[in-house]
């Protein structure tokens, strides 16, 4: 138990260092890009008043030296104060809190869809391959096609097919406006809005899961412990679930941890295409408006999410394979 807490403490410490590193790098990269938020805001206000621009820069702290701004921001972040978005006239926390649930819902759904279907298809393909079946080739080729398609393009095709032509699903948004829905009707409304974005987000990763699971299962099936289990007279299904999958899952779980980080970036395009009111779009808007506090706040939240999920992945791997320990 002490070893476990030591391991966890180490991972948390490294995670914290990664977050701080990401924040410093993000801060510097954002500032390296041209674009002045004060000038943009003054332009939107239709004013060419130099004093107004100077006042805005002062209010935003942009008249301070860069190092001072960085230290100030890190100090605020340490106190969990992410500052104020002048563009949106709201605190950064409130803006993120408003959008984060939508993103988590989409991200979670995309993750569940891609991992469950991908792993199931991968196992099916591996089993079919051993029987030299057509199913393996069908699944593998479909996966390859899905992987090769840009997700935003696929998203548009899905909208055209299921929303415009067939009229089965809504084309945009997270829920219907002006509805007084409860219970099943409310669930149905959210689910029908969620399905296409979640599918679009999951397809690319689904393909990777298929290929990864397929090769991992095939490799595990060739191991001697599987032959031993077969010789002992165990049923094929039990060999698959008790022995093959447990070992084959290690690379899959590791990939899942990485995927969660990539999902965050994949969401940006999907949220734009489906007008999904999530954090990806907030990030896009903040970037185009050079809303520095909001940008850094979003970077912080995404970094924390990715690091936390990676630690969780490590813990699951450790549980799946007890040989993995802090020292080895």
């Amino acid at each position, binding site marked *: 138990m002490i070893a476990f807490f030591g391991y966890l403490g180490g991972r948390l410490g490294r995670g914290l260092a990664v977050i701080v590193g990401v924040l410093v790098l993000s801060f510097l990269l954002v500032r390296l*890009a*041209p*674009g*002045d*938020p004060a*000038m*943009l*805001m*003054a*332009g*939107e*206000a*239709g*004013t*060419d*008043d*130099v004093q*107004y*621009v100077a006042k805005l820069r002062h209010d935003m702290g942009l008249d301070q030296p860069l190092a001072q701004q960085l230290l100030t921001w890190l100090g605020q972040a340490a106190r969990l104060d992410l500052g104020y978005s002048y*563009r*949106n*006239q709201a605190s950064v926390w409130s*803006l993120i809190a*408003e*959008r984060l649930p*939508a993103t988590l819902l989409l991200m979670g759904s995309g993750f569940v869809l891609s991992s469950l279907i991908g792993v199931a298809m991968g196992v099916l393909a591996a089993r079919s391959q051993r029987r030299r079946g057509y199913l393996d080739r069908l699944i593998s080729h479909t996966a390859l096609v899905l992987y090769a398609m840009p997700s935003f393009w696929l998203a*548009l095709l899905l*909208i*055209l097919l299921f*929303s*415009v032509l*067939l*009229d*089965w*699903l*809504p*084309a*945009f*948004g*997270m829920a*219907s*406006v*002006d509805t007084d829905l409860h219970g099943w009707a409310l669930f*149905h*409304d959210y689910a*029908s*809005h969620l399905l296409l974005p979640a599918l679009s987000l999951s397809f690319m990763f689904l393909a990777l899961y298929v290929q990864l699971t397929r090769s991992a299962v095939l490799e595990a099936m060739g191991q001697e412990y599987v032959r031993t289990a077969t010789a002992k007279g165990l049923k094929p299904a039990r060999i698959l679930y008790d022995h093959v999958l447990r070992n084959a899952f290690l690379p899959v779980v590791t990939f899942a941890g990485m995927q969660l980080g990539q999902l965050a970036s994949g969401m940006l395009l999907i949220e*734009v*295409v*489906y*007008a999904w*009111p*999530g954090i990806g*779009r*907030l990030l*896009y*808007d903040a*970037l*185009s*408006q050079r809303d520095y506090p909001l940008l850094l706040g979003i970077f912080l939240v995404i970094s924390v999410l990715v690091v936390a999920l990676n630690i969780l992945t490590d813990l699951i791997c450790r549980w799946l394979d007890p040989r993995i320990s802090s020292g080895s």
Partner: protein
Amino acid sequence: MPTSFSRPAPSGWRKSVRALSAALLASACLSITPVWADPQAGGVLNLVSQPEPPSLMHGLVTHVSSQYVSGKVLQGLLTFDTDLKPQPVLARSWTIAPDGLTYTFDLQEGVRWHDGQPFTADDVLFSFKQFYPQTDTRLAGIFNEFIASIDKTGPLQVVFHLKKPFAPLLSSLGSGLHPIAPKHLYEGTDFRSNPYNLKPVGTGPFVFKEWKRGSYIKLVKNPDYWKKGLPYLDEIVFHVLPDATSRAAAFERNDVQVLRSGDADYADLSRLSALPGVASSDKGYELYAGLAFLQMNLRKPPLDNVKVRQAILYALNRPFIVDNIFFGAGKVAQGTFSSSTPFHDPQLRQYNYDIAKAKALIAESGVDVGKTHIRLLNGEKGGAWERLAEYTKQSLQPLGFKVDVVTSDAATWFQRVSNWDFDLTYNFVFQIGDPYLVTSYLYRSDNIVKTTPFNNVGGYNSPQVDALWNKVADVAPGPERTRLYSELENRLNDDLPLAPIFEMRFPTLYHSQVKNLLQTATSLNESYDSVYLERSAP
């Protein structure tokens, strides 16, 4: 319960079959189905808000997206018909003294703000004596120069006393740019951070209800609207849809009933306008009179040479640009001022596409235009503008220019152009009625200031032109003012500090069930108090 015209989301293939059957039946019955003859009350109008507005007080933000939404909530003294003649809104009537020095406005009676407070002359005084002088530096400059005082002569009467005649005064008091701000909610506050900028309280036909950021903005009918019996609509919902293709799909599904110019890609316009039940119109932008132009930085060679600038305009095949790059969404510019306005001189010399003449002008200039690379800064305005930048590069190559197209995002473009860090760039201006009010900022030397891309960023400095701008402001409308504007436009046409490319057409696509949509010179940003949705009779 309001009647929504957006489709509910059916849940299965059976619904699509039912929908198809219904569509076939509807089309079969169309010729015999009666429609209501008079405006019908009720219904929800679904519109697109893109980009999401930064504020809902459009007196503070000149963003079109803000005007589009809050134009239904907030109102100004007057608006303009399609001939740019002022029409009453909160000002019931007005009189102008013969010497042009006194404007008396009588305000509408019985008007209340959405929170129940009465609208009075104090609100108008507050708006034009405190609110706008602090928040709109350009209007403040005009008022400083021309306005002696603004007085209340009764609870519903306001008088503007001028120091000297200022012909464009009425143009500057329109609902589109300067809505009246509620004194009781703004006085004594920091106007720019006032919370009511995000939940506006106005006098308009629609009351702000909800802004779910990233999703939609909802307005509901004002039951106490001062025009009795109006508005017809129960609600207006502005959906925030960031992707052009998704907006087109939503329009095709009738999830949204109107697409403004720019909501759909230019390449998609002809397909969408050909859909059954869809109408298209260029009306409603007369006040804006958009003009796209090639901005040139006159500070360094070779663009400091007038013959080189003229050669550039001769080398650009503008009919090709309009027809093939913008898919007909425009008209070749005839001069500095929009040809749809009375300020344009129809006798102006034209720069018709003539590559031989362009080469001759380069030769005459004696400038080696290929000596240095020229940066054409391309902002993030959409695919057509990117193609225009590439086309420009190709068109100038035969003249010997070495053009590098530098593409950047909107924020970078904004900063670089504001800081004069460019050689060429495309931009556009809304003339907003009288050219003195907005267009002049592109040319007057007192607007060579590093704050915005929408002033004299090219560094054009002509004392004669400055003097002409000052004169047109002082002279009352009439033949003398027309002559002055003609002289001004001719001089600018010769100096060519920026090259007018095309007058922008703003096609609005809408489902024909939407009635009374385009009625004034700023139709889409109007209050929509008379807009209604036509439904078939039961």
